[in-house]
């Protein structure tokens, strides 16, 4: 079995927050306690969508020390392959689901004298848990949260109410923007910056901080990629002696799993490195989309991350 340990839960609350985002509460089916976790952790939610098993990671946003329930917030992606649509349209109160133990790829650096959080849109969710954790630890933090408009600003009101001095909200439609250079310039020594949001925002924050001389180990980001559809292709799995057809709307990892071949994974979003797979032979081009392999590794064509990356060409042979 691959991935983190599993937990059987039931859906005990579904709360639409706005036009795009809905919150789900999970409690254990057996009534027991859930594991505590560290702020920034995610859980992988299993969805039985017709014949397809979808496994999507969502940041845990509830209090990490609260063991009676977990909550996640799911943004509906009408262009996506269907995981968020399934959550929004199919999941009903009382449904039983399987989620994974918490896995953290975006943890706080507990050495930091101060934590500077930059969130864009639904990227707010990991920070909600981290803020609750820092409340207990009496940590110093500051949040800068950019949203499209007031109506879509999930959790902005409650954050501003509970933490009026730490919370700063920016609305795109009011032409408000984070003064990133000024913000980064004014931070005390020992500050760590964390960013979660759209890719453009992550690049902007990382590049700006780097250009201002911030040490790389003080800059943290999390971006889960959703697998993108692409042209179908065929792959030969040498170790298991199977040839697998990867459809337009499934990922290479999902196709491998569908054929009953066990492949390791954790995040399923190109970040954790668990599913790294050796390419034995290929004739064609890789569509590398992960954050894991270096540019040199991507160019060398000896490895692929099947959770998000694809292939276009004549033949592909993997050691799996």
């Amino acid at each position, binding site marked *: 079995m691959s991935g*983190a*340990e599993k937990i059987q839960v039931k859906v005990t609350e579904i709360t639409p927050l706005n036009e795009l985002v809905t919150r789900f509460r999970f409690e254990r089916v057996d009534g027991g306690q859930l*594991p*505590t*976790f*560290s702020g*920034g*952790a995610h859980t992988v939610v299993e969805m039985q969508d017709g014949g397809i098993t979808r496994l999507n990671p969502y940041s845990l946003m509830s209090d*990490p*020390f609260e063991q009676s329930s977990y909550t996640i917030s799911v943004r509906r992606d009408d262009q996506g392959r269907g995981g968020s649509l399934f959550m929004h349209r199919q999941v009903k109160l009382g449904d039983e689901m399987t989620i994974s*133990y*918490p*896995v*953290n790829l975006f*943890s706080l*650096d*507990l*050495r930091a004298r101060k934590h500077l959080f930059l969130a864009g849109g639904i990227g707010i969710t990991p920070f909600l848990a981290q803020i609750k*954790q820092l409340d*207990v*630890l009496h940590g110093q933090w500051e949040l800068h949260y950019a949203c499209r408009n007031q109506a879509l600003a999930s959790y902005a009101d409650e954050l501003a109410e509970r933490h009026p001095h730490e919370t700063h909200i920016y609305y795109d439609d009011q032409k408000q923007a984070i003064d990133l250079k000024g913000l980064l310039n004014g931070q005390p020594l020992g500050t760590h910056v964390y960013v979660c949001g759209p890719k453009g925002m992550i690049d902007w924050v990382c590049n700006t901080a780097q250009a201002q001389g911030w040490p*790389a*180990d003080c800059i943290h980001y999390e971006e889960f990629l959703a697998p993108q559809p692409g042209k179908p292709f065929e792959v030969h799995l040498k170790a298991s002696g199977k040839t697998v057809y990867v459809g337009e709307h499934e990922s290479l990892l999902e196709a491998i799993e569908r054929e009953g071949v066990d492949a390791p994974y*954790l995040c399923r979003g190109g970040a*954790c*490195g*668990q599913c790294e797979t050796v390419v034995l032979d290929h004739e064609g081009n890789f569509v590398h989309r992960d954050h894991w392999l270096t540019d040199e590794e991507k160019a060398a064509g000896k490895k692929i991350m099947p959770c998000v990356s694809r292939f276009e060409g004549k033949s592909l042979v993997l050691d799996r």
Partner: protein
Amino acid sequence: MTIQFNDESFRDDYTFRNSEWAIKRFPFPFHEDSYMYSVNMEQHRGGPEGSVYEKRFDVDEHYVSEMKDRAIVLDQDPLRCQSLPHMTLAGWDLLELIMVSKSEDYPDLFELHRNGNQWRWINKPLGIDHSFTFMDETTLPYGPMEYITRQAQGDYAVLDQRDDMLWMDAGMVTTQADWSLDFDIGMNFFEWHAPVPLAHEMGVFQRALKFLLNIQQGAPARRLNWTMTVNPLLDTSPENYSKWGIQKTTLTPENIGRKQHLRVELQTFFRLPRSNALVFPIRCYLCAFEDLMTVPKWGRRLHRVVRDLPVELATYKGFINNRPLMLEYLSQFDDGLPTSPGVWPDLETEPPLTK
């Protein structure tokens, strides 16, 4: 079962002894007649009944005496226990992990009663009954890591995980095989392993680090490591080398069976939930050569392993000078018969010594 705790010493008069029960459950580390490094990790989810692998934190007949020995070491050298300021949360994680595990696995010896953050911990073997507030250091006599590891056998390295790397940022280390927490504190995984020969070239540490970084909550792992120790010393630290190093020269053909011990570490790895740190308990088991020789399979195999070990490893493990003497002794217990695969003693099925 209720354990009968020994009253014994790991220094001076060395009254440490293994009962027959302890010998049979000794974690013999060689699964075949030769040894080479490997990452050799497996899941830590129980094991055969009565074995050292069965519980999350094994408690045996040496528990009470080992904790007394730890207290002596700490009294003489407080730097054996250190925790950098950002590791306090990991200390609470560890305290919770050990208290919950021991009270569930040994309900006759340990009890944990929790009412929110008001906790009551009862440790019957050590005579402790203590109420405290979880996450409030002022309610404990020591920091949380020190408090609980003064009550748990084995050393504890608590590793922070940052930037795809592990950092030795806290620990309780009093029963170590010649490494120093005070020297290693703050180092990263490659830095603290730098002295190990051969393994770097083999890529062992890259693979091991990748494995450890991916250990997740609810899925602990374990492996064994081993070395040799003359006299049943728990504290073979660099800090005290002047005291124990010289004892390696006291072996004779007459006393080697009693004095020479195989030292095995059961190393386990747990992801800590609140801090996302990794705890690395290193539990030391000692067994005298003469006790090991009561298991015919282990006698045959230990001779072959010691005989064929590369010089670099025998040097690193500190017994190159004593190897001829060891082989002279061990060869008496090797009649050349084949051995069964695996680490278990197989007393019922393996033939007695025919020599």
